[in-house]
């Protein structure tokens, strides 16, 4: 099972976590990640950000990433929720929830999903700062994080 949503509205992480485990006695572990809008980035204060996406491709790319996680790990359920539109510091941006039988695959799949989402799913952030609006540059560290999964080292460790 998998749930993928792109939405402007906020999400309730607790409710999403409850959904993947309630009534399923095979679930022994739920790992969740919440990405949050910060008030500072690259040395500038950030008063708000606007998330743009590619409707259609975004959902398809997220589905491909979820499928890839399922090939790599035996997990029971995955939820990915990503917000778009205008967000302010302290607002939630993204949620990934993975339910599995054991924590190892739940943790690993959750981290993999975030690393791949950040480098593959077509979202773009534009920040408002005192110096004006600016598009956020992609980070080499995010590419490096995603590439770890291609070596197989991380997968073997999990």
């Amino acid at each position, binding site marked *: 099972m998998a749930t993928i949503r792109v939405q402007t509205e906020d999400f309730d992480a607790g409710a999403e976590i409850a959904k993947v485990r309630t009534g399923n006695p095979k679930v022994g572990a739920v790992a969740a990640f919440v*990405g949050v809008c910060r008030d500072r980035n690259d040395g500038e204060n950030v008063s708000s950000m606007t*998330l*743009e*996406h*590619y409707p*259609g*491709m975004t959902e*398809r*790319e997220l589905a491909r990433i979820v499928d890839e996680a399922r090939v790599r790990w035996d997990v029971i359920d995955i939820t990915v929720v*990503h917000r778009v539109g205008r967000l302010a510091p302290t607002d939630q*941006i*993204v949620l990934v929830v993975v339910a599995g039988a054991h924590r190892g695959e739940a943790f690993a799949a959750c981290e993999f999903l*975030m690393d791949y*989402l*950040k*480098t*593959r*799913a*077509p*979202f*773009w*952030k*534009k920040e408002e700062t005192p110096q004006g609006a600016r*598009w*956020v*540059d*992609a980070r080499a560290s*995010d590419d490096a994080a995603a590439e770890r999964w291609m070596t197989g080292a991380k997968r073997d460790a999990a």
Partner: protein
Amino acid sequence: MVKVLYFANLREDLGTAGEELSLPADVTTVAALRAHLIARGGAWSSSLALGKAVRVAVNQEMARPDAPVKAGDEVAFFPPVTGG
């Protein structure tokens, strides 16, 4: 005709979110389409210049420069992604 879409800073710099384009006969790949757009000059040549980090998707799937482009396709140009 192909549907060409532009996102994020490319959409802003080019002043358009997309267009319907009829392909010249010699434009059959992603790289050729990019070169065709660069040849318009101005913001097109600066924003899509080969040194710039521009990603391309064909029919909503990431595509390499040698990927084929044909009538009816949806081709999107955008910068490296920054979600999450």
